[in-house]
Structures are given as C-alpha cells and as structure tokens.
C-alpha cells in the first residue's frame, strides 16, 4: 500500500498546472465556448490528461491506469475551472465496447468523432416489454443484401431526440432470448425512425420512445458479430474514470450539502451547527470513504492483473442507499422549499434550492436506471454470495454503474 504523492506526482501536478495555465481558458478568437471546449479537450487528450484509456491513434491520451494521477487531474481541473472529460454515453459506453469488440473500420470511423462529440449516442436497450428482463426484447433486424432492416420499438432512450446514433440491442437470430441478440449501431436521423420525447417526473423531456419502421443500418455495423450482442453489451470499462464516477459524484454532493448546511440559517444560526445534522453528514462521509478506498483497492488489483474482488458488484446499490440518505438529509435542510418545484430542462438552469429538488428526483433515477435495485440484489446474491438463481437469474441487467 502506498498512496503517497511522491516527487514523481508533485512533478506531474506541476506539469499539469503549467498545461492548464497555458490552455484554459482559451482566447475568444478560437470560437464560441463549445469550440473552445472542444479545442481544449483535444489538447488535454494529446497531453494525456483526458481520454486516458483511449489509444493515441484515435486521438486519446493512452495512459497507464494510475488513480493518483486521475485524482490530481480532477483536483487541478476543478481548481482551474477547466471543462472535464464529458460524461456521455458515447464516451462512457460505446467507445469501450468498440475498443474491445469493434472492427478497424468501426473504430476508425466512430471513436474520434464520438470523442469530439460530433457523434452523440443514445443507448437503445429497454423496450416496453423488456426492462429488467432485457433478454425479452423484441425489436428485430433482418439482413437484406448489405443492410439490416429494423422494426420495433425502444423506450426510455435518453437523449435520443438530439443524438445522431444509437447503440442498440436488437433481435437478429432465431435463437431464444439472449442468444438471438446482436449489438447494432444505428443512424437515428433517417425516415424509418420516429422519436417521441417523454415528459419526465422532473418536467424535462430527456428520454424518448424510438419507433423503427423499416429503418436501415449497414450490414457491417454489427459489433462483436451476430448473436453476440449480450456479451458485447456487458463490456465494462475498467478504468480509473469509470471506477471513480460514482465516488466523484458523491464527493461533489457531499461538498454541496456542507455548503447548503452552512448557508441555511435557522433561529439565527447556520444549520451546520446542529449536532444531529453534523453526525448525519459524517455518516455520508464514511460511506464516501468506503467507496473511494474500495475503488482504489479494486483498481490496484486490476492494474496488477489480479482478480479484483466483489466490490464493484456492490457499488451501485451502495451508492443508491447512500443517495437515499443524502436525500433525507437535504429535505430537512430545505424545509418549506421542499414544497416547490421549478419546471425546467436539466439541473443547470435551476436556481437555488430548486437544484436540490432536481437532485431528489435524480436519486431515484440512480435507483432505477442501469439495472434497478432488485436486479442488482439478484446479481449480488448470485455472483457475490453464490446463492441459487431464481427466475430472473443474474442475466436481467448488468451490474453497471450509473451510466444511463
């Protein structure tokens, strides 16, 4: 065990600071904020600070897994106010899948454009009658000449209305359940596809229904081969960033709670001085530490080529339970602001405590999306504890993080 920031890391931090000082913010002459961000990301990737898991030949940083470096990057980017690596499905899910399973053509075409966010992706797994029981999905694709012809329907597809592509699980073979499924890449902007936005509990309309009516995709846009979609969809990105996604997010939430508790004044004193509240925040912090250092352990074992233990399979449920605790804490702090909700699109546009109301709903998204809690419990019961399978088996949903 060694978590020390040795000289090597101090040097690393110095270099990174120099890089950030020279590259962020970029001058207005380089375009609008979007363009400047894209340019900054190009430079940061080249220097190895983002896209660390992606090979240089696709424009990535191609770095060894090193979580102290990744912590330093997080700290220094935050300090400089520099835009972090984008958290989108294409980068979190599609690129790892392509890196592991894609053909050279698929990788060359999709990876660089996904990194630059020229291509945005929506994940098309769930259907009206296939959620937890994903292997029941019915959307079909048939190979006709050099094209797949697709018919059926997806639902809950996040951001589909503004995405160029979908990574979809589709039935292509006559084999039963998961054996008949392939992983297809589909251009969403074509006549055979209709997308309807669904209004969500938060008032925004981010997820969508997607209807396929003789939609088409090229024959060679199947990833990992025909009938292999189940395995392909279960690819997990074992890299620092994915490992820390939940931890970093909870870390941010914890800092915001402390701030909220400082700024909330009751009977003339800041709420942070209430003994009960202080203890409850410390409880959340203990869980954050448990997650962070279990992740460190996991990644260290991974880097050493050892099987990395069971923690990862418990992480999503642990986060879900923790975030329920956080919600309980915050609603007490909000007091009567819990009665109010500002309709809006996304969290960013919201003001003051409306952001916390958004978070309150978001905590439920964490519990449901990416494998609901009961399915996670099946996974832990079967894969961690070795208990017998029930009807749903472990197959229902992969035990992935909060990536939907």
């Amino acid at each position, binding site marked *: 065990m060694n978590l020390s920031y040795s000289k090597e890391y101090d040097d690393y931090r110095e270099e990174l600071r120099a890089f950030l000082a020279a590259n962020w913010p970029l001058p207005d002459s380089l375009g609008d904020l979007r363009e400047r961000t894209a340019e900054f990301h190009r430079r940061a990737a080249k220097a190895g600070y983002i896209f660390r898991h992606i090979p240089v030949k696709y424009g990535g940083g191609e770095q060894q897994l090193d979580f102290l470096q990744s912590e330093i990057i997080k700290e220094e980017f935050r300090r400089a106010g520099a835009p972090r690596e984008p958290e989108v499905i294409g980068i979190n899910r599609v690129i790892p899948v392509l890196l592991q399973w894609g053909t050279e053509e698929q990788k060359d075409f999709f990876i660089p454009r996904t990194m630059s966010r020229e291509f945005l992706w929506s994940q098309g797994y769930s259907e009206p009658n296939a959620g937890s029981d994903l292997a029941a999905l019915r959307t079909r694709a048939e190979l006709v000449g050099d094209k797949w012809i697709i018919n059926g329907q997806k639902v809950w597809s996040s951001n589909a209305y503004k995405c160029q592509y979908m990574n979809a699980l589709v039935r292509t073979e006559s084999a039963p359940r998961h054996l008949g499924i392939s992983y297809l890449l589909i251009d969403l902007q074509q006549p055979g596809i209709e997308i309807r936005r669904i209004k969500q509990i938060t008032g925004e309309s981010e997820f969508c229904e997607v209807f396929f009516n003789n939609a088409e995709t090229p024959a060679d846009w199947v990833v990992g081969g025909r009938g292999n979609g189940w395995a392909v969809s279960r690819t997990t990105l074992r890299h620092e960033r994915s490992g820390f996604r939940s931890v970093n997010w909870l870390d941010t939430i914890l800092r915001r709670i402390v701030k909220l508790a400082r700024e909330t004044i009751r009977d003339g004193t800041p709420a942070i001085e209430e003994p009960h509240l202080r203890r409850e925040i*410390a409880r959340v912090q203990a869980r954050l530490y448990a997650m962070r250092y279990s992740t460190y352990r996991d990644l260290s074992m991974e880097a050493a080529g050892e099987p990395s233990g069971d923690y990862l399979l418990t992480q999503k449920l642990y986060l879900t339970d923790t975030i329920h605790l956080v919600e309980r804490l915050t609603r007490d702090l909000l007091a009567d602001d819990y009665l109010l909700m500002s309709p809006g699109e996304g969290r960013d546009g919201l003001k003051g405590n409306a952001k916390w109301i958004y978070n309150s709903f978001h905590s439920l998204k964490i519990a449901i999306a990416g494998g609901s809690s009961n399915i996670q419990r099946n996974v832990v*019961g079967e894969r961690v504890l070795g208990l017998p399978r029930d009807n749903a088996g472990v197959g229902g949903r992969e035990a992935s993080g909060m990536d939907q």
Partner: protein
Amino acid sequence: MNFKLSEEQHQLQDAVRRIVSAAGYHERLRAVVDGQLSWDEGSWRDLVEFGVPGIVVSDRFGGIGLTMIELALVAEALGYAGAATPFLGHVLATIAIAEGGSEQQREKWLPMLASGEKIASVALSDQNDGWAPEDWRLAPNGSRISGRKINVPAGQIADIFVVGLAGGQLAVVEALTPTVTAEAMDGIDMTRPLAAVEFSDAETELLENGSAGAARMHDAALVLLAADAFGGASRILDMTRDYSLVREAFGAKLAQFQAYKHQLANLAVEVIPTRGLYWFAAYAFENYVERSSHAACLAKAHSAELFLQTARLGTELLGGIGFTWEYDSQIWLKRAMFDFAWGGRPERLFAKAADLAGW
C-alpha cells in the same frame, strides 16, 4: 502507488487466519463461551510465537517493526474468528508506550510486551461513556494512584496496565497485589471479558509524552475495532449465507426465496465496501497523522454500526436457532455489541469526525 496488499501482507493475514481456524480452535472458543475456559490461551501462544504482539514494535525493542496496516489485518482476522485472546488491550498498551514513552521507558517495557512474556491491557474509563482522554478523571497522588477503572479488557490476566489519568495523561502500572486488584465484570462479549480494576495507592510510572501517546492509542483503538468489526460482519454474512444453502422450508432452500436472497444481498452490499474504510483509517494512522483521528472516528463509528446491524439482521435471518446459546452466531452478535460501545459509541465519534472535518 497502489492500494492493495503486498504478498507479505497477504501471507501475514493468512498465517493468522490459520492460527485461529486450526484443529481445536473451535472447541476452545466454545469452551470460553460456555464458561469452561476463561480465555483461549492456546491461540494466544501461537499468535505470540508468530510475532503478533510485536508487529508494530520497532526491532530495536524486539518487535517486527511493521505498521498499523498489518496490525489491522490481524484484527480483522481475529474478528472473523471471534478470537478469545487479550489482543486488543495488549496491543493498545504497547502502542501507548511506544508512542508516549521516553526512550528509557520504551526500552524498559516494550521488549517484554513485544515478546509476549507479559500481558498488558489498558484501563481507561472511570465511568460510563468515558473513553476519550479528556474524559479521564483518575488523578495521581505523586507517583501513586488510587481509584477504579472499568471495562478493562482481559483485566484479570494482565500483568501490566496502561492507565488513563486526568489531563489525558498515561501511566504504567504493574498488577501487583495487593495494590492492584481486578474483578470480573459481567461482560457481554465472552470472547473479550472485562474487568473492573481497583488501584489502592499503586505505584505508577508516568509516561513522558503521555498525552501524545493517549491520542495515538485512542486512534489505534478505533482503527483496530473497525477492522475487528469488518471481520466480524463478514463472518456473520458467511454464516448466514451457509445456513441459507442447507436449511429448507416450503420444500426449498431458504436461499431460493428471493426475499431471503435480497436480504442477504443487502447485508453484503453494506459489508463489502467497508473494507476500504478501515484500510484507509489504518493507512492514515501511519501516513497522514494529521488526518488520522478523523479517519479513525469515521471508520470505527461506521464499521461498528455496520457490524451490529449485520449481526442483528443475520440473527433474524437464522430464525429460532439464532436465538440459542448453542448456535455460534450469538458470539458475533455480542462481539458486535462490544465493538459498538467499547472505545466510544458511534454517535459521539461521528460528532467528533464532523468537528475534525472542519464543518
């Protein structure tokens, strides 16, 4: 840079696991629980021979010169096994002297503790909820003390006590009759019996840097209890899992009922990540001294609550058998109650952690 165990650390923990699972171990543990033995001398002898009492003692004083990380790994293994040994008090007394003693004091006391020739313990609380150095009331009269300390682990077999004094100071006292007498308390945890120790004008040796030693010892106690609790919670989890795979009801194994499976999964989800928390607290004890109290408070408070909750729900999941004296789960439920209260209750430690976090 890494946060995994080295080969040596794995070997050390495995060796301790072997000692506390060897042939005869379970019989001795049961004999302790059933009142036929007062403690597990055989395991302690093996642990001493392996070098456990000297793990954190420098080799200058006959120890192995390793760190709190190794010691905590041992504590986890002992917690998993429910070991009935004087480990806790002994290593805490040792740490108190190593961190709070002058060079001469270390030379005088540490070799006999590191070698296991003498058994030591810590006598801290004067009254209920009195674990922290600032709670201690016993005031010396010159170099002598008179008064009573409670909840002293293995107090009846200890040869040496490190005693907490008013002002957060520490003194070493030899258990000589008639000035020092230990009387058994009705401790809840049969594997770690408690005593009330009465000092009647007993001769003491004040540790030169007592208050520094006391703070370190207190942190060490929290880290080691966290490790013990993680080990104990893992044991309850394994035990309940194993039972669910053999016990049948309604024509099926308990584990086949999803409700049961999910309750077990919930326990596992809480237990497994806790390892990282106690590891970090042990790491911080060595490497981030200024943050180590904070990490230790969080680790003990969280792990002790976790262990107790796991043991209580585990007992519920075992059904009637879990409510018997005969079934082993009771050993860990009571150990969990010890880990919960000894060294400071979680609510108080969370409050202290919040203060130390600077909120």
